[in-house]
Each structure stands twice: as structure tokens, then as C-alpha cells.
């Protein structure tokens, strides 16, 4: 046990320290601009985790809200982290997520009469397929003509955003002229909620309907587990990692780099598409204009980075970012400090992790002990996306 504990502590020290450091700098920014950091952070804590609520917030509600935000972050986080392992930078999780939403809605509307056991898998798989297509195009272009995936995925994000607008404003999914939303998907396509969606029932002092946590949470956790299993326990995952670390070595060993790149992007897109489908099937049940402003797929990049590309890390990072997201609103309501502070904090966390400020600080203060020695040729940030930072294959 002790070695595991030590490894866990060692693995958590950097991200945790980075989070703490970011909050300290954030506090300075708040204080310098005349706010009260304590008020700000107690608002964040309450809104994010339901702890220390001073203004009558319902802790259970806050936790529920956070979880609803966390669910798509986990799944899209995986969609960014997996290509990272193959050395690909998927900025397109957003577009893939939207593609998943569009497909899920289209199927759910078209076949709205089908019973749940048939329709629910259909919309989820349809969402995954659409996400896979949206990510597969950059994958194929990368593998065949070498088009840079950063460019192609950015382009496809825009295409997805405009397609979404087209579909629900004037396009085939539009509910009625003058609206900017789609029809509702059939009830058979709805993911069940954890608590009954029944407003006459009072739970934790509030009507049960306000607790929007849905069973998509399980799907998201399964997705994270599937990601870990794929990466560490399968030959495909092994090849993905090999390609990510050294395309040449992988090629010399007989791994088809092109095929691996395409398959990786397809799977990643399926994860992002699943996130979109879960969001529609679990929360909204229709496609609306609120997704014009969606940023889940971009937040997912930060989640994947903070989570150091591991499944457990991604779940923890998604919880942190979901909590920050939910907390920002409460902070503004309670402390009058703009919720935008949350983005500043997110950025500071990323800086801190990327630059390994914690490692530098530890090196400066001898009492804290030397950080794990890195060979001189390795930059400190390099292990982020490699095995070094992640527990090796379990025996």
C-alpha cells in the first residue's frame, strides 16, 4: 500500500499545488482590483461544491448543478486526451460534440415514437457516429495528405457551429418559423434522471425536478474507464501510445501509423459525439440556440491537460472545472465579483501546470525535498503527456 499511496501523493502534488498557486494569484488579482478574495472564494466553494454557503444556497442543488456540468467535460476531456496520446492535438472536440448533438436530435426527432430500449441506443450511437465522422475527416486528412489537424479541426468547429444554426434556424430541424430550436426528441430517447423529475416531490427542501443529475453520469464514467482500458490494456492503446511517442519507432515495428491516427481520431470523435448526445438526451431533449455559445469542447482541452491525460485525472479535473463553472455564477451573485474570474483562475492553473512552477518552487526551497530527477535532456513539462507522469501498467 505505501508505495501506491506515495505514488498517488507524488502524482497529485503537482496538479494540486498548481491549483493552490492559481488561487493565491487569483486572490491577489481580486484584492488589487478592490474585491474581497475571501468572499469570492467562499462563493466559489459554495457554488461549486455546496460547502460554506452563506446566502441560503441549497448545497445539494449546487452539487447537482456541478455534476451536470461535469458530465460532458469528462467525455470530451477523454476525446482530447486520447489523440494527445497519439501525438495529435484535437482542438475539434467542440465541433464533434455539436455533431453528436445534431445527430442525436435528428434521430430522436425522426424516430420519436420508438420505445426507449431501441431509441436510446440509437441516439447515443448516432451521436457517436456523427462525432466520429467529424473527427475522422481531420484524421484521414492528417494520415493521407498530412494536413495539420489543428487547422482542420478548427475549420470543422466553425462548420459545425454554422451547421447547427442552419439546422435550427430555417433548416430542416427548425421547430417552427421564427424559432431557433428544434422539435423535442422522443421520450424514448431521454436518459433517466437520478432523482425523479417530479416537482411535487420535495427532496433536500426543493422540488425534485431541480436536481438535474442524470444517468449520463454513469455513461461518462464508463467512457473514462473505457479510455483507461483502451489506453493501457489493449494492443490498440499500446499502438496509440507508441505512435504518439515515436512515429518512426512505431512504423519500424510494423504499426501502421496512418491507420492508428485515423482510428484514434474516430474513437476520440465518438467520445465527443457521445458527450453531445448525452447532453441532449439527458438535459435538454431538444437542440436550442443555447448551444451557439457552447464552449465545452474547448474547456475539455484544459481538462485533458490538467488531468495529465489519465482517466482518473480527467475525472478530477472535470470536477474542478465543473465546480469552477458552477461556482462562478454563485460568486457573482453573492460577492458581486464577475464570474469571469473563473477563466482567469483556469488559465493560471494551466500556466502553473505547464511551467511546473510547483517543481521550481520546490527546487528553490531545499526543505521540501528534490522533485523526481528528470534526465537533463527532458524538459520539465514533457512528462505531461507521457507515461512518466502516469502510473505505469499495473501488474
Amino acid at each position, binding site marked *: 500500500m505505501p508505495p501506491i499511496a506515495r505514488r498517488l501523493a507524488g502524482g497529485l502534488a503537482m496538479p494540486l499545488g498548481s491549483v493552490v498557486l492559481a488561487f493565491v494569484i487569483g486572490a491577489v488579482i481580486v484584492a488589487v482590483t478592490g474585491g474581497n478574495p475571501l468572499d469570492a472564494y467562499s462563493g466559489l466553494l459554495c457554488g461549486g461544491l455546496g460547502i460554506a454557503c452563506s446566502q441560503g444556497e441549497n448545497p445539494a442543488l449546487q452539487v447537482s448543478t456541478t455534476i451536470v456540468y461535469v458530465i460532458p467535460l469528462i467525455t470530451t476531456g477523454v476525446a482530447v486526451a486520447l489523440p494527445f496520446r497519439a501525438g495529435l492535438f484535437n482542438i475539434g472536440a467542440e465541433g464533434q460534440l455539436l455533431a453528436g448533438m445534431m445527430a442525436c436530435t435528428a434521430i430522436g426527432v425522426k424516430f420519436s415514437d420508438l420505445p426507449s430500449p431501441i431509441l436510446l441506443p440509437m441516439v447515443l450511437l448516432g451521436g457517436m457516429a456523427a462525432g466520429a465522422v467529424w473527427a475522422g475527416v481531420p484524421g484521414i486528412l492528417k494520415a493521407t495528405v498530412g494536413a495539420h489537424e489543428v487547422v482542420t479541426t478548427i475549420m470543422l468547429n466553425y462548420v459545425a457551429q454554422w451547421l447547427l444554426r442552419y439546422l435550427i434556424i430555417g433548416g430542416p430541424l427548425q421547430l417552427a418559423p421564427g424559432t431557433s430550436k428544434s422539435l423535442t426528441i422522443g421520450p424514448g430517447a431521454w436518459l433517466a434522471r437520478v432523482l425523479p423529475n417530479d416537482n411535487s416531490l420535495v427532496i433536500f427542501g426543493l422540488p425534485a425536478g431541480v436536481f438535474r443529475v442524470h444517468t449520463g453520469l454513469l455513461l461518462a464514467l464508463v467512457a473514462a474507464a473505457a479510455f483507461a482500458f483502451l489506453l493501457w490494456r489493449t494492443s490498440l492503446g499500446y499502438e496509440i501510445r507508441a505512435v504518439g511517442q515515436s512515429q518512426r519507432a512505431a512504423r519500424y515495428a510494423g504499426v501502421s501509423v496512418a491507420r492508428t491516427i485515423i482510428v484514434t481520431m474516430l474513437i476520440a470523435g465518438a467520445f465527443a459525439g457521445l458527450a453531445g448526445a448525452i447532453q441532449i438526451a439527458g438535459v435538454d*431533449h431538444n437542440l436550442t440556440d443555447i448551444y451557439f455559445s457552447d464552449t465545452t469542447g474547448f474547456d475539455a482541452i484544459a481538462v485533458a491537460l490538467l488531468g495529465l491525460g489519465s482517466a482518473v485525472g480527467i475525472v478530477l479535473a472535470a470536477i474542478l472545472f465543473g465546480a469552477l463553472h458552477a461556482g462562478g455564477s454563485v460568486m457573482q451573485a453573492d460577492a458581486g465579483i464577475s464570474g*469571469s474570474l473563473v477563466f482567469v483562475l483556469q488559465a493560471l492553473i494551466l500556466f502553473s501546470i505547464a511551467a511546473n512552477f510547483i517543481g521550481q518552487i520546490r527546487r528553490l526551497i531545499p526543505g521540501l525535498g528534490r522533485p523526481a530527477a528528470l534526465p537533463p535532456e527532458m524538459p520539465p513539462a514533457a512528462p505531461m503527456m507521457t507515461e512518466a507522469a502516469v502510473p505505469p501498467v499495473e501488474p
Partner: protein
Amino acid sequence: MAHKRLKFLGVAAAVLMLAMACGGSNGGGGNTKQYKIGLVTDIGGLNDKSFNHLAFVGLEKAKADFGIKDDVIESHNGSEYVPNLTNFASKSYDLVIGVGFLMQEAVGTVSTQFPNIHFAIIDGAGTDAKGNDLKHTNVQSLYFKEQDAGAMVGVMAGWLEKNGKSKKPQHVIGAVGGVSIPPVNHYIAGYKWAAKMEDPGIQVQVGYSNDFTDPAKCKTVAKAQIDQKSDIEFQVAGGCGLGVLQQAGQSGVYSIGVDADQKDADPSVIASALKKVDVATYTAIQNVVKGQFSSGALTFSIANDGAGYALDNLTLPAELKAELDKVQKQIHDGTLTPPADIPA
């Protein structure tokens, strides 16, 4: 409204001092019950130079007048609407205001869950997923007849074109909308309708920027219209539309602002179509404070001075002024009814 509040020596000083000025605590109320009002903006945020901003202006005025406790949450993306509204509702606020058409379904959902909490929504109603008004007894819909305001500025534009009093009169005017959604199209409908009424041969170009925040986008759309001979440009695109006003100024043609009085935005602004969201917000709060909350639609129009126009950087010919007064009276009386949908 003057915007020359900042006369500080440097940027840093400005940051510090104003920030400190804002850092003060909320003013306390008297011994009577202090009402709690929560405002949730849509994704435009408070500095949207449009209805979110105006809603806040109304909120501030109400605070000054009634000593209410006011709290604001800016939504950063659409998936926050429900949680942000729920936040205030679950804390038993006396009135929860949702700003914007985009929040209709969210208000519908949350108002169903909290039947004892009062809600108000700007530009919409609490709806179900199909867009049907749920007609909850705890929801007040604050509607605007944007077409009334649009019609007034449309009269101006049409009259100026017909009489050759615009800058480059060729019987062509333009309107730049943000996204093609009802509140935007209402304005344009009234504008086009009234312009045609004044100048039947007029051509009205209607374009969309697909954006509410990026002035550059609206600017290119406006420029394209001006290049197609339009010489009066009506912006209906919030912060993005500021680019329309500016392009008009640079091209030496007239422009018309929207929502608030935008005469400061550019000298080319000859008028603004007003949608008095501040008045609506204030009214909704006042109703709650005075125990007069009523559900259903409250429509702000020329008839109740909730919509109208402001004259800006142009001295109007007397004939035009007379024409405006005449049309305003007719709309007020109901003898003229501007359409809600853009006429062909």
C-alpha cells in the same frame, strides 16, 4: 448619456480607483422588508451595449428608488440559464428576471419548479420545449413591440429618401440584424414597412452579421450595403451593430441606433429606435415591491411609452417632425399597426 466618466491620469490608476469604488457593499434597506431581486443576463453579459445593459439600468434605478437587494449573474454560456435562474429561485428571491429571448425555455422550466417565486422575462415568455407559452401564474412576460420603434425610424428613413434629404438619396436603405430571431426581425419589419409607406419605391436591404459581439463583422455587412447604394443604415445587432454606425460615419451616410439612445456611438447616428428594457425592468420590480405582480404578458409599445425613438445628431425638418408625430399618434391610437414579420 455621457460616457466621459474617466478622466484619470493613467490606466492603472483607473483600474484601481474605480475598482475600489465598486467594491463597496450593497446599500441596506430600511426596517421594512427588503426585497430581493435577481437578474440573470443572457450570454451577451452586462456590457453588451444592448438589452442586458438596459435591464441593469432599470435594476439600478429600482434599487435607488426602493432600496431593494439586487444581485446579478452573467451567463457565460447557454447551459447556465437554468442553473442561474434556479440559484435565485431556490434562495426565495422575490423576483427573478431573465433577460432575453434565448431564456424562454429556461424560465419555463424553472418557473414550473418554483410556483411560488415570481419571474419576469424580457423579450419572451416561459415556454415549454415546443415554444408554447406555459402561461404560469408566476411569470410575467415583458414583451416589446420592437416593430413600433422600428416603424418610427423607418418613417424617418423613408421620408428622408423620398424627399432627397438623406446624404446620397437613391431610394435605398439598409438594416443589419444580428441573428435572424424574432426580436431582431420585429425591428426590421417595422422599419421596412414604414419606409415603404413613406417612399413606396424604396429598396430595403436586410442583412445579418450572424453575430452580436464583433463590430468588425457588422461593419463589413454595412459596408456591402452602402456599396449597394444604401445611405441610411439601421443596426439591430447589439454590440456588433456598433460597427454599422461607424461604417455609416466613415462612408458619410446616416445611421440609426437600436435599443438605447446611441447618439454617442457615432456622429452619423440620426436617431435610435428605443426599446425601453430599463423601463420594463423597473416596472416589473415596482409591481413586485408594491404587491401588484401580475402574470401574463406586459407589452411595451408606443401606446404605453415603452418603445419609441430618440432624435440624435440631426436637426429634423419641420415636415418630417410633423410626419413622425402623425405616425406616432396613429400607432398610439391603433389606427396603424406595424407588422411583426418582415414584409416582402
